Structures are given as structure tokens and as C-alpha cells.
């Protein structure tokens, strides 16, 4: 079957998940929401602390955590519809996984940026330290 034919196939309204699978989905949705909500609470408190010390880095962390929370909540709502309705299961599964894709992509991007900075900063610090020691000795 060609990609064009596969793109035009009708989506499944109902994926015949078992009752146990539905329970698993709902439990996963609840865990995602708890994780998102708890992270938002921790982030809001840390925002307050950052504002007291005028720490700009804290504000960036807030925005990132807010984005993660939004993605988790949206993904959870799609998966909940898969468990509780038989309207458009396939679309909700695809949309839920798409939200998770963006979430893990953002986390991956942050990891890559962090590793890159660490790899760049360590040699710079070593060179700066050596130059400082040389300047102090002379």
C-alpha cells in the first residue's frame, strides 16, 4: 500500500483496548497530571524565591517547567478520551503521543545544550585558570 493510500485510510473510532488497558491508561493520565501539577507548584515557589533574589535564570526555568506541564496535561487529556470514549481513539492516541514527542524533544534539546556547554566551559575554565596563575606568578 502506498503512502498516499495509507494517508487516506479512515481512522479507527475505537481501538478495542481491554478493560485492563483502559485502567492502565487512566492511571497513566493521573500520574502525568500529578507530576505536572507538582512541578508547577515547585516552580511557582521557586519563581517567588527567584524574584526575591532577582535571578533571571530562575525565570527561564519557570517558563520551561510551565511548557512541560502544559504538554503533560494536554497529552493526558487525549489519552483519557481514548479510555473513556469510543469517538476517535486513533486520533487521540496519535495526538497524545505527539504531545509526548514534543515534551521529550524539549528535554532532549536541554540535555544536548547542557552537555555542549559543559564540554565548552570546562576547557575555557582550565585555560582561564592557567592564564590567571601565569599572570599571578609573573
Amino acid at each position, binding site marked *: 500500500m502506498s503512502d498516499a493510500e495509507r494517508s487516506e485510510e479512515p481512522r479507527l473510532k475505537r*481501538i478495542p*483496548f481491554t478493560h485492563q488497558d483502559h485502567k492502565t491508561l487512566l492511571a497513566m493520565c493521573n*500520574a502525568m497530571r500529578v507530576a505536572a501539577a*507538582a512541578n508547577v507548584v515547585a516552580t511557582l515557589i521557586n519563581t517567588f524565591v527567584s524574584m526575591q533574589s532577582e535571578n533571571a535564570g530562575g525565570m527561564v526555568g519557570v517558563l520551561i517547567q510551565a511548557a512541560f506541564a502544559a504538554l503533560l496535561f494536554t497529552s493526558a487529556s487525549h489519552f483519557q478520551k481514548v479510555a473513556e470514549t469510543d469517538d476517535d481513539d486513533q486520533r487521540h492516541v496519535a495526538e497524545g503521543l505527539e504531545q509526548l*514527542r514534543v515534551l521529550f524533544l524539549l528535554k*532532549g534539546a536541554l540535555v544536548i545544550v547542557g552537555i555542549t556547554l559543559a564540554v565548552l566551559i570546562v576547557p575555557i575554565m582550565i585555560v582561564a585558570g592557567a592564564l590567571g596563575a601565569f599572570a599571578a606568578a609573573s
Partner: protein
Amino acid sequence: MTEPLARIPFSPKDEGRIDSASRWMRFIAVVQIIGSVIGLVGLVVLGTVFSLFGSLLFAKLREAASQSGADVHFEADLIAPLGVVLIVVGIISMITLGVQLWASMMLYRAGDNFAQVAATDVADQDFLADGFSNLKTYFYVEALFAVLAALNAVIGLVGMGAV
């Protein structure tokens, strides 16, 4: 009982997105696994070093205290409480890292399951169900750590207010 679907007619675009999601899940899982393993190895090394050289350090401190004439009950006032604190912190850290390692392995398995959904048409529904089950475990652990982080933030805030 309905047979599980061998193929769910995801569009090529959706399959591409599911495949991408699986790759990012496995990437994050690998990073977390490496971090957890490094942490566990580091804890073991620290514990070993402390047990080998800690008694030597305390002997030197005791000698310095007795020479200075200070009235310090080293064993009762310093060594015993410090030792208990270090052991408790070490145990909690190892449990935390172990749980994080296990959750990361669940995330990796979920990524594997979703990759099978995108790449094959043999058992899409079963792979989806297994993927959701593994994701559920991962998010349970994430929720636990997030709640502990929130409690920590609240305690810190209360402490700030008290100061």
C-alpha cells in the same frame, strides 16, 4: 473477546511522529540511566573512601582536640551523629538513584514498544498497550519525585519565612 488489532491504520505522518517520539524517549532514558549509574558508582566509591580513611581523619581530629585542651567528647558529640547522618543520606541517595534507574528503563522499554508500532504491522494494539503500561510506571515515579520536590520547595519557603 475482540482480538487485539495487528495493525492500526496510522498515517505515514503519524507513524513518523510516533517513531520520533520513541527515539526521544529512548534518548532521555539513556541519559537518565547513565546519570543514575554514575551516581550509584560515585556513592559506592565515596562510601568506600570514607570507610577506609574516615577513621584516620577522626583520629587526627581527636588528637588535635586533646592537644588544644578542648573539652570535646568526640565519639558522642561528633562522630556518632555524623556517622548516622552520613549513612542515612547515603541510603536515601542510593534508593533514589535505584528508583530513577528503574523508571528510566521503563521509559526505554516504552520507547521500544512505540518504535514497534511505527515500524511494524504485526501487533500494534499490543505494543501500544505495553508502551502505555511502561509509561505509566515511569510517570508514577516522576510524579513521586515531583511531589517530593514540591514539598522540598514548600519547606524551603517556610524556612525562609521563619528566618
